């Protein structure tokens, strides 16, 4: 391309054409305007006092979690292992919404988590890709086998894609916790969903500190196993 242009114009065509379009006084004016505009930009960046670009504010206070069990049980600590961000909380008046950002920044396969969401450490079996679970277009939802949408409130169906036996047990009320009424005709029974206990990006349970132990009887003889506790052998 360049070679052909050079042949036609006999020199560097671009600069030559510029000279022909803008005679000398105009050229000076153009340069002055350009420098002025650049200076404006630099001043704005440095001062940063002007009107900010209207980006969505996604930092929100933690929402009220879904109710668990019966209200009267205030003396029991029924808090699940995790607090969820998604699920059907959007329906409960909380506006956590992935599309707030992803309308502006469409997700692309070329984007890796080294660019965004760096706080997420994916450690979930053989899963290496965000889009194994997350839908590529509808960012608020998850993806089914055939690429169709699983709504965020139905996250259990997503997990069931791989974890069939656990899902079967959960449906039978044997996996995960149920609260409230075992007799369903007497009151409501709430059940925890997968991600209220398991971190979907790192599902293995973390070790926790145990609550206080019973005290060893004061006057009882210590068993040999207790005496040699530090070595861990008995």
């Amino acid at each position: 391309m360049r070679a052909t242009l050079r042949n036609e114009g006999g020199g560097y065509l671009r600069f030559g054409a510029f000279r022909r379009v803008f005679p000398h006084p105009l050229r000076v004016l153009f340069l002055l305007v350009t420098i002025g505009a650049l200076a404006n930009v630099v001043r704005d960046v440095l001062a940063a006092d002007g009107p900010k670009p209207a980006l969505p504010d996604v930092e929100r206070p933690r929402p009220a979690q879904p109710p668990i069990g019966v209200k009267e049980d205030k003396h029991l600590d029924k808090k699940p292992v995790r607090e969820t961000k998604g699920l059907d909380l959007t329906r409960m008046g909380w506006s956590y919404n992935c599309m707030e950002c992803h309308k502006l920044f469409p997700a692309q396969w070329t984007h890796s988590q080294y660019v965004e969401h760096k706080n997420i450490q994916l450690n979930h079996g053989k899963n290496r890709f965000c889009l194994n679970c997350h839908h590529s277009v509808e960012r608020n939802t998850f993806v089914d086998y055939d690429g169709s949408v699983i709504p965020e409130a139905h996250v259990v169906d997503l997990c069931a894609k791989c974890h069939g036996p656990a899902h079967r047990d959960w449906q039978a009320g044997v996996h995960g916790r149920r609260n409230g009424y075992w007799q369903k005709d007497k009151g409501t029974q709430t059940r925890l969903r997968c991600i209220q206990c398991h971190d979907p990006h790192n599902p293995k349970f973390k070790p926790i500190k145990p609550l206080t132990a019973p005290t060893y009887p004061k006057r009882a003889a210590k068993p040999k196993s207790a005496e040699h506790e530090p070595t861990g052998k008995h």
Partner: protein
Amino acid sequence: MSRPENTDHGGAKTIEQAVRPLTRRTFLKGAGATAAGMAGLVAALRPLMQLESGEITLGDLLKTHYQELTPEKLAQIVEELEARCEKDHGRRPTIRDIQPLEGVEFAYALNLSKCIGCRKCAHACLAENNQSRESDTDINMSYIRVLQLDKGSINLETADHYYDPETVPQKSKYYMPVQCHQCRESPCTKACPVQATWQEPDGVVVVDYNWCIGCRYCMAACPYDARRFNFEKPKLTTEQLNPNQGYLSNRVRPKGVVEKCTFCLHRTREGRYPACLEVCPVGARVFGNILDPDSEINYILENKRVYILKEEVGTVPRFYYFFD
């Protein structure tokens, strides 16, 4: 000339021995015996003195077994108990006598693959059942003991329920919470000399705290260490008191009686889950009606590998352990 006594005489007594005059020694002996007798008499009359001072009521002295109580008598006792609880612990509870449900037999299952030994169940038991405690961290009266066992076998000889590491679960350990198994062939009810403990129609083994004499035979008979004895008057602050109380379950017990897990019958007989299940962070606990073929408990008995603790002692428990 002195000679050793009780020798060479072949049974003959000295005059001194025969007559036994009032020496200093015999006088002191007699005085001691009299004092001990008087102390015993005072102790025996103590209930009458307490009656005068209002510490106990006439109803406490002239008790009736729970199963022979008339509704009016029961209402009167409940009234007295509520008043006493308000006086001792600063809050008036609601004590109800909840009857077993028709066609319901309770059973419990616990997932040994899931339990991480965090002891939340043991603490929730205290919060629910009004056991005596010195502080919020004192769970010696909890009905649940969480055993820490070595992986590889179910060896109770090396089990430890005083474990206190930084984090649980420990590698090479697993955890087994043990509480009352509500046995079908319950040795505790057979051992009781006054029939103060019995099995209800829904399978729950209960104690009549007003009838128990505190002999602790049932504790010796229990192979699961499921019973606790009130060595002293229960210590409970107003905040610790759970006002939702059942006559046969979690009302505040008097000193000198045995208490035990009742599957939280004041909750479960109203269709709710027991407290230990409500708090389990890993969902290891499953509770339900074993007579209902669609219940969770029957799903486990049909589909999971089930283990019965100390099956060989023939107690036929209503508490099952299972594995995933």
